[in-house]
């Protein structure tokens, strides 16, 4: 196809897409207006049924918990695939470890990273643990924890460390999180006859130990997400820093 013909096809397709988008946007509710009944229904039933004010957490781990279970498995499968593809083979590995001198980050970068590791790690754990009380939860907190691990890598002895953490440990963390969420779902099935149904004491709304299975689910998701992100990083780092044998 000539350049002209290609441009013509592209412009025509863009024109149609643009027109359809304009029609779709004009059909939307005005900004900030929520028409559907589901949110209103949840706002009424969640405080009594789950003893939490966090509608999002209650939706993710109870009312649409099955979707979360699917997403967990998708993340797990995706990271497994990524790790399998990027895994450094024995034949790819360098002959003698640590011999080539690699550029070390500046003192300022290392000091900054080292100073931030602790606070960021605590923030991540806090966000995971308070997922049923304040906005946040397993995913947000999990990626923050993974960020702290990355800072530890950047603040450590530079690139000589080579990876964000022991790969076996990260794999174990990710698998533990995924298995934990699955166990939580099945425990609901065994204890109450319905998958993911709450089987723990609901406690007093607003307390750290309340809302039944929601905080447990948050911890499981947090472990899995932190392990997954850090694992993908480790595999990428290992591949990128691997020197091709000449």
């Amino acid at each position, binding site marked *: 196809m000539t350049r002209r013909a290609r441009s013509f096809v592209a412009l025509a397709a863009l024109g149609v897409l643009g027109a359809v988008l304009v029609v779709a946007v004009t059909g939307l509710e005005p900004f900030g207006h929520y028409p559907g009944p589901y949110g209103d229904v949840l706002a009424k039933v969640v405080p009594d049924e789950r003893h939490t004010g966090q509608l999002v957490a209650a939706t993710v781990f109870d009312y649409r918990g099955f979707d979360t279970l699917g997403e967990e498995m998708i993340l797990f499968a995706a990271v497994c695939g990524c790790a399998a593809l990027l895994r450094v083979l024995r034949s790819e590995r360098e002959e003698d470890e640590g011999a080539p001198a690699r550029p070390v980050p500046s003192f300022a970068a290392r000091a900054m990273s080292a100073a931030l590791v602790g606070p960021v790690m605590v923030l991540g754990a806090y966000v995971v643990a308070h997922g049923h009380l304040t*906005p946040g939860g397993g995913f947000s907190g999990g990626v*923050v924890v993974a960020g702290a691990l990355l800072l530890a890598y950047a603040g450590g002895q530079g690139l000589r460390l080579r990876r964000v953490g022991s790969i076996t440990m990260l794999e174990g963390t990710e698998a533990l999180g995924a298995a934990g969420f699955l166990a939580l779902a099945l425990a609901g099935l065994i204890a109450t006859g319905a998958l993911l149904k709450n089987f723990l004491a609901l406690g007093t709304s607003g307390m750290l130990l309340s809302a039944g299975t929601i905080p447990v689910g948050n911890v499981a998701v947090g472990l899995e997400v932190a392990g997954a992100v850090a694992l993908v990083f480790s595999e990428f780092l290992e591949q*990128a820093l691997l020197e091709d044998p000449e």
Partner: protein
Amino acid sequence: MTFLQATCLLVVAVLGTLVVATRDPLRQAAVTGIFGLGLAALFLAVEAPDVALSQIVVGAIVVPVLVLLAMAKIREHDE
């Protein structure tokens, strides 16, 4: 829509266009990170702090660094 939300939307639109307009992948990785931060500000402005927190880490750190690492690998391969 508040002034803050309108500003954030505008900033995201400008940064998104900049990402597309940047042709050099190395610069693009950096601009994508800034775009990710703009998106996080927008999420915060529409009262989704939990999504904003994830966006800061994923959009401003994870994605650009993965792109940089992949580029480092490709360059080393080309040499």
